């Protein structure tokens, strides 16, 4: 968790942590080796022509209007038709016959669990069917477990993408696109919305926490529970501010009357490590700055400035911080 300093984490296609991403990365390196060879060949031909510049054409007789036409034809047909066909067929088989199965949507009921990823302008909502758990921007899955991820959207098109674990899949209105999520080892992997979705597309990150199974089960149990009642007077005042003010018309906190569905579910806000689409850390100072001026961090987001008084703000933050 400490490695998370800032809002980093891994988001690198060439640093894979699953079968699917490893196969894709290996395919990339093989293709790159072939491509470098191809580019070197063409560059070599151009450099060869430059070295011989100004001299009579290579391999022809000076009176021939088409010097070297016949051998050149052989090169054009051999290197321009036959050779690329061989390369393309090989690549086609490797990519679309061997590797595609690893990255495809998992067969129905072949997975141990399902997670729903719902894209919103501009955050990710994650639900765990069969439990009441709802979180935002931070997805937890157990290690070495095949997870069926179902990507949908609440508004425009988004794209679910965690490069270290698998390729991306679009979340499109009216469709349920699925993908296999699987991780070889525990860790935190960063992902991001990959389809342009409006003003704050850039700040629609997510973190995938891959945990040992027992740890994951404990986490899920805790997330499925309703919010704990505040224990301090300050936090109780904060809950009052939340429920009586505009907060609850957009946010839900399970176990209270707040049931808004514009912004993320805040039931266990304090158990998260980041806020606002992995834009800022989930700390007291960032949380209060976010509430006061969210437009500074994510210009154009749906949350207005409510002009809270100093005491309203400190009690609200105390309440939100109690939502472990």
């Amino acid at each position, binding site marked *: 968790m400490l490695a998370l300093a*800032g809002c980093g984490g891994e*988001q*690198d*296609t060439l640093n894979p942590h699953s079968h*699917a991403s490893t*196969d*894709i990365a290996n*395919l*990339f390196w093989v*293709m790159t080796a072939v491509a470098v060879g191809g580019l070197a060949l*063409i*560059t070599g*031909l*151009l450099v060869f*022509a430059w070295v*011989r*510049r*100004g001299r009579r*054409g290579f391999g022809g007789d000076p009176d021939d209007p088409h010097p*070297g036409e016949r051998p050149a*034809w052989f*090169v*054009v*047909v051999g*290197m*321009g*038709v036959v*050779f690329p*066909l061989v*390369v*393309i067929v090989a*690549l*086609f088989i490797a*990519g*679309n016959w061997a590797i*595609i199965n690893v*990255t495809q*949507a998992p067969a129905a009921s072949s997975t141990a669990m399902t997670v729903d990823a719902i894209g919103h*302008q501009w955050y990710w909502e994650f639900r765990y069917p069969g439990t009441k758990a709802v979180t935002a921007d931070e997805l937890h899955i157990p290690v070495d477990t095949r997870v069926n991820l179902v990507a949908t959207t609440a508004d*425009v098109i988004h*794209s679910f*993408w965690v*490069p270290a674990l698998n*390729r*991306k*899949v*679009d979340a*499109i*209105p*009216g469709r349920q*696109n699925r993908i296999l999520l699987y991780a070889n080892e525990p860790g935190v992997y960063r992902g*991001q919305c*990959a*389809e*342009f*979705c409006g003003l704050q*597309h850039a700040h629609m990150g997510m973190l995938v926490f891959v945990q040992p199974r027992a740890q994951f089960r404990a986490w899920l149990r805790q997330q499925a529970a309703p919010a704990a009642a505040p224990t301090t007077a300050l936090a109780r005042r904060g809950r009052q501010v939340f429920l009586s003010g505009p907060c609850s018309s957009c946010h839900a906190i399970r176990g209270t009357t707040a049931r808004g569905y514009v912004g993320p579910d805040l039931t266990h806000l304090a158990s998260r490590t980041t806020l606002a689409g*992995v*834009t800022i850390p989930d700390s007291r100072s960032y949380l209060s700055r976010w509430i006061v001026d969210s437009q500074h961090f994510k*210009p154009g987001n749906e949350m207005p400035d409510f002009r809270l008084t100093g005491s309203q703000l400190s009690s609200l933050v105390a309440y939100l911080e109690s939502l472990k």
Partner: protein
Amino acid sequence: MTTAVYEERLERMWRSRPGFLGWAMTTDHKRIGLLYFWTTLVLFAAGGAEALIIRTQLAQPNQHVVGPATYDELFTLHGVTMIFFFIIPMTTGAFGNYLLPLMIGARDMAFPRMNALSYWVFLASGIFVYTSLFIGQAPNAGWFDYVPLASAKYDPGHAIDFYCLGIIFNGIASSLTAANFIVTILKLRAPGMSFNRMPLFCFAFLAASWGLLFALPSLTADAIFLFLDRNVGTHFFDVAKGGSTLLWQHLFWIFGHPEVYILIVPAFGIATEIIPAFTQRRVVAFPLVAVAELLVVFIGFGVWAHHMFATGMPTVTVIFFAAATGIVVIPSTIQVFAWCMTFITGRARFKTPLLFIAGFIFMFVAGGLTGIMFLAVPFDQQVTDTYFVIAHFHYIIFGAAVFPIFGGMYFWFPKVTGRLYFELPGQISFWIIFVGTNLLFFPMHIVGLEGMPRRNYTYSSGLGWGSYNLAETIGSYITTVGIVVLLVNLVVSYFRGPPAGADPWHGATLEWTISSPPPEYNFAVIPKVSSAYANWDYADREEDRRKLAEGIMVLEQGHEQPVSAPVDGWLAEIVEMPHDSPWPILLALAMSIVFVLLLLHLWTGVCFALAGIVLALLGWHGEEPQESEA
């Protein structure tokens, strides 16, 4: 009579009106080509400025040179401008208009007034789209404009209406140009220029024109649907009412992928004329190259869904489009090896235009090789919508379309202006642009693989993307310096360059047989053609001079032009061509009024403005040259 007398008569027959009116009413393909050239150059500067602001914003993480709203407008306008308002009009509008009739030995395009109309419509559509920027309503959902982000619900206001109407308006200009090119190439070739004797440049423009004509209706339909969804309450793309969001994507890419080939095939045509001139050798495997130019556009119509591999299409569909994506590579590899073998078997002189073509081949191969990678569907689904894709298609579009445009600007500069450009600054401009573009676009491969998605107005520090982005930004400034050197060189050469003469390069095609700049009637005598490299057929040129002195095939009795049989090029008839006309610009004006009123939802006004279009068309046909009863 003598040569001089015939030339003087032709001069009188084909002379344009002087001054501003002469330009406003012109039907001369060379003047229209120049108008296109200057207009697209201005729009190129706008698109380039947008790119520079984007790169400045992204130079470092978490910068705020511009806010997200402005950034979205900038990258949308950058894409729209470079594709619809720079490359297509620069290759077809400027290069095609100016050079195509010269290469086939014609005196004008087949439909000279329609040609003028397409320019004025293009200019009006450019002004229309850029007006949006100045009133703060610029399109902001990307050039691909996916719904539902572009629907009235998520993007109220006029921004997307500007996009829809601008695209439709611009498409009218492109369609007119494409139809004009096809008829010109099929019917106005000099008698004797059968298909196998046609320069490769013309094959390329024929292929691109067919491509435009078939691809644009899909985009136009898409834009009309979206305009209706937004303004009339239809539900083409509204899932809740039984519409489909993927319908937009399919229709867009049915246009959008052929579009890529429409952008680069004319550039192939430019390359296939520069290479023979500077190697003094015909292009190797001529028939294969000609067929490849046509095939690349044809197969290009079957690959569109590879832009949509991540949308969850059925595997069979995905595999089909992946296979087509593989096959479309073959016509390109044929051409690349034909060009390289022409370099090697000819006597290469690396003057500036050929340097740009060598750079183009390098960039095109680099971009093509990353393009082949996308046929591996899992890899495509991993890197799509990242900077890896941006790197790929900028190597193609900047490397394979814009490099030949720059090379062509140098190559035909002496023909158009009558002066030579300065060689040393020319070569310097090439190297600056070559280094700059590679510094600009190569790191995008890496940063894309490292996970940086497209269309982000900023990015967090700590992801390791900062230094690559800084390098790209520096590359963009270097590229700009190179382009400025190029333009300054051409401007200074225009005033100070040494006289070029008719044929400074010992070029291969017909435009080099006539004086620089060409006379208004182009060819004093309709040239004899017995190969695709007509200027190298010395006996034919000798015969032309003899015919001119005797007045054979001079056609100086009117505004005359021979028409040939489409394939064999036999002389079919002599036709009288239209002259200067005020109707094209007036018709374009009437059309502009319709589009402005559509934008403002003034439906009654639209009906009145449509009447204006009818009036302009009546005026147009009222001046039709009369068929002479022989």
